[in-house]
């Protein structure tokens, strides 16, 4: 049991209808690298597991040759996860160290992550891992233009797998799609799917290490500046989803930042698809990485060191219809150090009488 992590990461596999999610999953399920994994899928039928099957644990759960536990979700996801956890504790299923959930093509993936944080049992045993999104090379661009869900799925991804690239006529379409994805989500790792790649480890490997490492790209920062909001033809894009960077040379006040971000997420959480950044916190030598998906903020991570010669805060925002300039102004007013701590308001500093009297 020692190898069960205190918090089992739950990865999410999402992607638009027909974007090759199931094909990818089928290949991954046979991959020995997925041995210590529990996979939750919509239906057994669709992935055709029979030839991998080793043992049927119960109606909803089977054990595969690769050592992977595969189960279908009937009803509530939280219930299925609790059942899985309970079976692991009782030794009825192999001690898996991660969970992969396949979400349906049209669903907004966020509620799944939210379930993990809000369920009274699950939140002590599971944590949100990576979001892997499949995008179809042939139809992906059109779907991004047309469907909000498709944009959201791409925007919250940690890793994007471009499928059916071999069916794509010419490389121009693929290049356009890749640059569009780079605009939407500048720092997601993009894979092109082939008959035998990317492997399970590349997609569902250690996400915390990956998340910290990924924050620093070759150019020194965790993310190159995102491109403007135009299509490849140069016309302004119709979708309202955009990404931008807030940079600050003044150290950030952690308390002020916390107040600001919670306030922002409370009011605009569903429109802030992603927040990701490296902060220069006042009083701290090392950078602190923050990472959030909509209302959910991952625990902040202390990083080892600043990239050479650069010590300043940078936060990438991927937002749906919020004004970047207003957001930057708001950030500056609320979160920069030297502002938050120095000027308590007389009226606010007064103790609250009704709270302190007996």
């Amino acid at each position, binding site marked *: 049991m020692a190898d069960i992590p205190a918090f089992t990461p739950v990865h999410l596999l999402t992607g638009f209808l027909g974007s090759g999610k199931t094909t990818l999953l089928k290949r991954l399920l046979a991959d020995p690298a997925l041995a210590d994994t529990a996979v939750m899928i919509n239906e057994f039928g669709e992935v055709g597991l029979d030839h991998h099957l080793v043992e049927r644990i119960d109606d909803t759960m089977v054990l595969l040759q690769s050592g992977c536990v595969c189960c279908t979700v009937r009803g509530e996801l939280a219930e299925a996860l609790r059942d899985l956890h309970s079976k692991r504790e009782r030794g009825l299923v192999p001690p898996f160290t991660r969970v992969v959930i396949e979400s349906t093509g049209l669903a907004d993936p966020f509620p799944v992550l939210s379930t993990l944080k809000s369920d009274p049992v699950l939140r002590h045993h599971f944590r949100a891992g990576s979001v892997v999104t499949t995008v179809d090379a042939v139809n992906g661009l059109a779907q991004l233009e047309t469907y909000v869900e498709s944009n959201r799925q791409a925007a919250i991804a940690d890793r994007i797998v471009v499928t059916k690239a071999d069916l794509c006529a010419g490389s121009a379409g693929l290049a356009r799609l890749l640059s569009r994805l780079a605009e939407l989500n500048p720092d997601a790792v993009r894979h092109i799917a082939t008959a035998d790649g990317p492997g399970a480890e590349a997609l569902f490997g250690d996400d915390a290490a990956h998340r910290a490492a990924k924050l620093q790209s070759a150019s020194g920062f965790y993310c190159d500046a995102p491109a403007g909001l135009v299509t490849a033809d140069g016309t302004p894009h119709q979708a309202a989803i955009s990404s931008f960077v807030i940079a600050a040379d003044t150290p950030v006040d952690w308390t002020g930042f916390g107040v600001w971000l919670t306030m922002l997420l409370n009011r605009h959480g569903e429109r802030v698809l992603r927040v990701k950044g490296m902060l220069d916190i006042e009083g701290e030598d090392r950078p602190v990485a923050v990472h959030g998906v909509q209302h959910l*903020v991952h625990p902040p991570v*202390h990083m080892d060191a600043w990239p050479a010669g650069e010590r300043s805060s940078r936060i990438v925002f991927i937002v749906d219809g919020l004004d970047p300039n207003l957001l930057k102004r708001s950030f500056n007013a609320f979160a920069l150090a030297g502002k938050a701590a*120095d*000027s308590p308001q007389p009226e*606010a500093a007064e103790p609250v009488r*009704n709270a302190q009297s007996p």
Partner: protein
Amino acid sequence: MCSLCGVIGGDQHWTDAAARPGVFTRNVERLDRRRERARRVVAVNRVLAAFGMSLSDWQGSSFVLATRTGKSEMIEDLGHLWPAAERLAGRPCDPLDPALIARMESVSDG
């Protein structure tokens, strides 16, 4: 924070330094923890003043949010603060409201 209603099920909020590997653990010490709570109350009150409300620490374990007319509510952490503040104020607390930003800017300049 429960992201659906913002209230049910208090847990460790991400802004709290929890002693978990890899988590922001600047204030592992008890005194530092108290100091951070005091700083948080000050920082929140800078914003809440714009809505005629204030926050105070309650026994180092919760916070009390109160309006000038005495309506008050206990909250667990920052995740619960803003839904409660909006309820008591009867209007949204929007950090992107230009008037609020202008107010925050003038407070910090002054």
